[in-house]
């Protein structure tokens, strides 16, 4: 194999995986990882690092993989990320680190994500832990939300000696990693739980079933419970709907509801109590990663699935890998298509989705060509289930119950690059600040905020 060719990653075949929830990608074994790592040129000025939101020393960890020194590789990763097994799986490496790899100019970039995953999985499998001798500094910080942003912020602060408590509204930690991303992309017991447990090993406390804004307010956490700083990483949780006729028919779900039932509540398993209603034929509206996840989950539950997206394939916001996997599994793509009405039967159940064909016009504010409807092109896709996956907006629970915290027109909390909000001692980051984005950006925000919180407390 020449330096140009990337070591392929083994995957479950599409025919088999379309009816199970096992992980699609098997990842590299040791031989494959070492071989792939040997492709890395170890650039003096590594551009990959500049495109990593948490600035992982990528050539550094890869050079240890080359030497089969996996524990050292893991130690390097651990310095920068608390969730390497997660990042190695769900980061959009193709537009971040891997997009800048010099090898990518003439061939395929180094599979940085797959190598990160390999090292992290190796550490989990071998129960390898980085020694840490944390000395508690006596300061208490509260973190709201146990998703990628909150976990990262908590982990970094714990390493600095803070006594950190994470407050989680649901019964399980992990945020979107737990309720949103399906098992076949991110296994919960194998990856998410162990990575969360590593934080507990650092002394981070996680209080589940606490809905900040309802169970306790931020003001109370500061004034009554003695937290010196609060980091809000509560995510962008409220699903958006299209406001088209028929949207409240039975059989219309938000992707959040569908995925929460499947992932958090394990509704796809017979031994769990939560019901789920996959249709025989399902339309998933939207083209992001969440839409792919919902579509592939519905498929695995036995549905014939259509992705309905108003722009063309080129503009699909989902990762290429996920679109590719979805196609391999047999998801149908109705591109340049926009729903106008959901039709229901006499019992109130969905029986079809009326759509209109679109064409691309002038570029809009996003820089993408705006889809415009083609006259007289309406048609109906016969489906008995519709999953809306057109984005989410910030949850107002915290902003509406916290004094002096500023939000913008979209309801996002306003924070500077280090996560400082308008409210003294209160920081925020991740989707609650940016609107729905990626796991790794949320982690980057958690990291910056941890540093800013440390500065604030140390310098007061």
């Amino acid at each position, binding site marked *: 194999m020449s330096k140009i060719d990337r070591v392929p990653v083994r995957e479950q075949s599409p025919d088999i995986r379309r009816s199970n929830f096992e992980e699609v990608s098997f990842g590299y074994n040791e031989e494959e990882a070492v071989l792939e790592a040997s492709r890395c040129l170890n650039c003096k000025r590594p551009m990959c690092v500049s495109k990593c939101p948490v600035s992982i020393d990528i050539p550094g960890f890869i050079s240890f993989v080359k030497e089969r020194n996996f524990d050292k590789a893991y130690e390097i990763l651990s310095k920068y990320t608390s969730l390497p097994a997660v990042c190695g799986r769900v980061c959009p490496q193709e537009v971040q680190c891997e997009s800048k790899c010099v090898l990518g100019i003439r061939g395929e970039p180094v599979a940085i994500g797959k190598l990160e995953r390999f090292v992290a999985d190796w550490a989990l499998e071998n129960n390898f832990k980085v020694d840490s001798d944390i000395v508690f500094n006596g300061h208490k910080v509260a973190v709201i939300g146990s998703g990628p942003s909150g976990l990262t912020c908590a982990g970094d602060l714990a390493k600095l000696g803070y006594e950190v408590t994470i407050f989680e509204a*649901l019964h399980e930690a992990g945020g979107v990693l737990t309720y949103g991303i399906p098992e076949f992309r991110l296994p919960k017991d194998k990856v998410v739980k162990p990575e969360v447990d590593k934080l507990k090993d650092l002394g981070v406390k996680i209080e589940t079933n606490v*809905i900040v804004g*309802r169970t306790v307010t931020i003001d109370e956490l500061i004034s009554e419970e003695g937290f010196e700083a609060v980091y809000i990483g509560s995510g962008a949780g409220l699903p958006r709907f299209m406001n088209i006729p028929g949207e409240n028919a039975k059989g219309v779900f938000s992707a959040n509801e569908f995925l*929460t039932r499947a992932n958090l509540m394990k509704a796809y398993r017979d031994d769990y*109590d939560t*019901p789920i209603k996959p249709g025989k034929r399902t339309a998933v509206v939207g083209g992001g990663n969440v839409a792919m996840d919902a579509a592939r989950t519905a498929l695995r539950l036995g549905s014939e699935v259509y992705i309905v997206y108003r722009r063309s394939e080129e503009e699909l916001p989902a990762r290429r890998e996920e679109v590719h996997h979805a196609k391999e599994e047999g998801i149908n793509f109705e591109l340049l298509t926009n729903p106008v009405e959901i039709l229901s039967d006499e019992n109130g159940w969905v029986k079809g989705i009326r759509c209109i064909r679109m064409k691309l016009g002038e570029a809009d504010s996003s820089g993408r060509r705006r889809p415009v409807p083609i006259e007289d092109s309406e048609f109906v896709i016969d489906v008995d289930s519709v999953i809306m996956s057109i984005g989410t907006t910030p949850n107002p*629970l915290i902003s509406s119950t916290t004094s002096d915290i500023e939000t913008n027109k979209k309801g996002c909390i306003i924070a500077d690059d280090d996560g400082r909000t308008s409210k003294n001692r209160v920081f925020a980051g991740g989707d609650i600040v940016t609107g729905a984005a990626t796991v790794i950006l949320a982690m980057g925000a958690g990291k910056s905020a941890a540093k800013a919180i440390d500065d604030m407390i140390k310098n007061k």
Partner: protein
Amino acid sequence: MFKILSNEMIAENIYKMDILAPRVAKSAKPGQFIIVRVDDKGERVPLTISDFDSERGSVQIVVQALGHSTKKLVSLGSGEFVKDFAGPLGNASDFISEDFELLRNKKVVFVGGGVGAAPVYPQVKFFSDLGICTDVVLGFKNENFVILKNEFESLNANVHFCTDDGSFGFKGLVTDKLEELIKSKNIDIVVTIGPMIMMKFVAELTKKYDIKTIASLNTLMVDGTGMCGGCRVSVNDEIKFTCVDGPEFDAHLVDFDEAMSRQSTYKEEENHKCRLDGDLNV
């Protein structure tokens, strides 16, 4: 894990449970609800709060055991634990934040049905504690289903029990009793909690008399924090989420037919039963 302090059957298949949940008890207000998950494999079940004691750290719920999950819940005895107990969820009743002197001059009627009588209790108690006497109309299928009789009677309120067959109290529907009250008193506000169908008919009646009416909706939901959107209802033709925008809405603007239809989404699923199913004849 949350400890069950007591569990008592108070009517046919209806149980009153006290759960130790200090954080919830401390913040709970009339009008709010909780989500309970019995064990690792359980679903998240929303249930209204029927009382709370912040000093003791306990929250009381009234549960009708109908489906798999509620049956599992009521089978637990005192000293046992439920896995998760999250709350309080939803907005507190508007009354809480109103000027008490203004409230004093209002004639309020509460209309509850079936286990919906339970969440009426903390609201009536709130008024009673302020020294304001309200009218309360509570409807049940028959005397075997009457709940919280002593609790309601201990409050400063005119309580009117109704049963379909007249086996206890007034014979007839809550709407019949309510119409009597409307005709005899100058009623300002009606608050209704119970099966959707009952709330729909209450709303239709009060609309005729142009009386402001608030309904507390019990919709399907998963997380209770706004995330799943499963609890969406049309209020004045706008989509609202019961968990973050409600659970109380202007009853005259709620699309009850749609809400009832949505509530039956998972009806066929063996393991799942809506908590109010089967008790529509109040």
